[in-house]
């Protein structure tokens, strides 16, 4: 609770600073452009990346910058809107974009490079960006901060006022900079807010990209390599339907592709829907892989066609089915009348025929 209070105060403090900056910096800040769209929750893409980066710049957003407008971003936007007297509707319209553009910086080149390289990074204002990036995944040893900068760095006024409790003494000349204390970056933000945000003030702990206080983040001192070489690219993100991972979708798409490629699109959606209906049904396993890999349940599994690479259509069909589409009419079974071997399947009440498949209860 206390820390919330503190964060709030700090944000307020910063809000005032921002207002001051309005006057001082107005002419000098050339804004990087958002497009004209109103950004809404659920959106993905470059505008969202910019929105998240700009919100992070002023300490409103502490999550990963991943280009997906999820709940974390939503709450940040609403907080921003409340604080600056906009209607808190979560829609980022021209007014809010203007305000953001005026008060924050967005290093597009840096952010997109980080995303492309799949690094962990942050984009807080008032910290040199090279201190805010994690090592490159893929074997290369990360060098978060260039060596010459670190000892002489704290020459400016890295810590004053804002967060004395976190930093007992300036670590000028300390070689393992920032290792023991993972300072939450938003602590650093307000202090430097008084200066020009775009000037690179040196901040000793800057390279710990803590998305949120209290979260477990490895200290990334140059001495240790926290990232094994085979680390996957995990900065960019995508939307997935509630309750399903992208891998679930992939497995289902493989099953649909193996079972129903060449069928009309509804036929493919219907096959995906049958998988989902089985998950719901009490008499079948209750997760995608359980249903799909149940022995003898799907011929594509039995003959290995499930290992083919699915096309976009199959994937789209699975997404449609997960989003509630069910052309099969709640079917639990389907069969190809030309090749069906079991007499029993014919005794099921039939719902409809789509393409080569008959769907039944």
């Amino acid at each position, binding site marked *: 609770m206390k820390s919330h209070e503190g964060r709030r105060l700090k944000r307020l403090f910063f809000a005032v600073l921002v207002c001051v900056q309005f006057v001082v910096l107005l002419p000098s800040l050339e804004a990087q452009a958002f497009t004209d769209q109103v950004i809404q929750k659920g959106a993905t893409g470059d505008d969202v990346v910019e929105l998240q980066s700009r919100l992070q710049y002023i300490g409103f957003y502490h999550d990963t910058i991943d280009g997906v407008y999820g709940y974390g971003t939503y709450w940040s936007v609403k907080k921003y809107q409340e604080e600056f007297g906009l209607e808190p509707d979560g829609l980022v319209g021209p007014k809010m974009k203007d305000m953001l553009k005026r008060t924050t910086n967005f290093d597009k080149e840096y952010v997109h490079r980080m995303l492309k390289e799949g690094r962990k990074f942050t984009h807080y204002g008032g910290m040199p960006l090279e201190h805010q990036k994690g090592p490159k995944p893929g074997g290369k040893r990360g060098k978060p901060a260039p060596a010459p900068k670190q000892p002489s760095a704290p020459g400016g006024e890295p810590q004053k006022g804002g967060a004395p409790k976190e930093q007992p003494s300036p670590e000028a000349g300390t070689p393992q900079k920032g290792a023991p204390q993972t300072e939450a970056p938003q602590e650093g933000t307000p202090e430097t807010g008084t200066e020009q945000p775009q000037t690179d003030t040196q901040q000793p702990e800057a390279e710990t990209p803590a998305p949120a206080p209290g979260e477990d983040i490895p200290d990334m001192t140059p001495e240790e390599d926290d990232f094994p070489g085979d680390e996957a690219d995990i900065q960019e993100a995508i*939307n997935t339907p509630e309750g399903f991972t992208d891998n679930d979708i992939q497995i289902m798409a493989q099953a649909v592709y193996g079972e129903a490629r060449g069928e009309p699109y509804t036929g493919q959606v219907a096959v995906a829907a049958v998988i989902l209906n089985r998950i719901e049904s009490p008499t079948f396993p209750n997760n995608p892989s359980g249903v799909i890999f149940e022995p003898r349940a799907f011929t594509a599994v039995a003959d290995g066609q499930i290992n083919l690479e699915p096309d*976009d259509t199959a994937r789209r069909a699975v*997404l449609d089915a997960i*989003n509630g589409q069910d052309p099969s009419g709640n079917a639990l079974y389907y069969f190809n009348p030309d090749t069906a071997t079991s007499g029993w399947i014919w005794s099921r009440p039939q719902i409809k025929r789509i393409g080569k498949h008959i769907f039944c209860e």
Partner: protein
Amino acid sequence: MIRSVIIGVLAVAVLGTGYWGYLEHQEKNAILIQSENNYQRAFHELSYNLDHLHDELGSTLAMNSKERLSPSLTDVWRITSEAQNDLGQLPLSLMPFSKTEEFLYKIGDFSYRNAVRDLEQDPLSEEEYESLKELYHQSGEIQGEMRKVQSMVLEDHLKWMDVEMALASQDEPGDNAIIDGFEVIDEKAGQFSEASVGDVGSRTQQDEEIAKAVEDLEEIDEQEAVNIAGEFLDRKGKLEADVETTGDGLDYKAYSLTIEDPEDGHYIYMDITKKGGKPLYLLEDRQVESAEVSLHEASQKAKEFLDKNGFENMQLVDSRQYENVGVFEFAYVVDDIRVYTDASVIEVALDNKDVIGYEGFSYIANHQKRKPMEASLSEDEARERLNPSLEVMEVHKAIMENELEEEVLCYEFFGVIDDDTYRIFINADNGREEKVQKMDRAEPVYDFD
């Protein structure tokens, strides 16, 4: 000389092939034995679990205090789920074994529901105790049959691989001993299916609800269905459609339309109920290659689409962008209450703002005049029931379906604990936490290239 060389080479070749064949054969055998072992394990575990289930149900019955049943019932629930899991690993899906599976589900459902409820305050009724007895008795019979099959398998060294062969072959699969045994079990389970434990709830219920909802409406013919589709779709040009009627497996009758989009030639699929002509779903088969409009603009288009087609008072409750398609979930809103049971999903292509998907199953099934529901708890009272570490960000009133499939009036809280967003439904009548849901985060792209 040359002849003997040739003979020598051939002899080596024959021996080599023979040896290679022998290795292949061994390898194949090893794999067969391995899958056989997997089946055997699942089978014997199933039998063990059914044994165990019977015992555990028995000890639940023998317990003197009806208030302390929870641990024992939880155990029953766990065992049923294990048995279901074992069943899922056996090659039974193309043979009628569903009644046994349903039976297991019933026991699981019954034990779960009673294990989680506060038996101290609300002990088992006489009737429920009777059902428990009944279940005990029935599980005993199934256990007996199962043991018989098991001992037969052990005695005669029966193989599950043979079951698979028998099921795969076109012939009558009846002459396999294991299959016979399982058929007997399933028949038994079928006989006592109506054992007053309640119906098996599942999505099939929705069909019945749809059937009920359109029951009294007037029937339309194929041409009318095409006309309705035309109005619904709002595409320029005349619609050409193939119409088929659904079969008997569905509780309601519907027309399935396949329409060629007059604008770009893609196929649009649509189902419309025969009675009342209600569009059930709509799908367009089109890969959207680019995003020209924003998600927000698309959501407005989706709303317009709903308004135009007579869905009143719908509110956008969730929106997501999947590459170049916007998916929007709308819920009916009455007196500031979000009715989640009357939901509809609209998909809009982000290139030309066409509606390429619509789904209204639950809306058609549930949308009706409801008795107004009153909240007996105030919002603050409901808030007190929340976990204190939850930072509440948004509150709505909502009607949702709880686990017992009843519609209940709730307060819907969106809140944050440590950067994770949760959605919590608190019953506005009795303050119960009906549902707690962790909202998924955006999923990182794992890229190993």
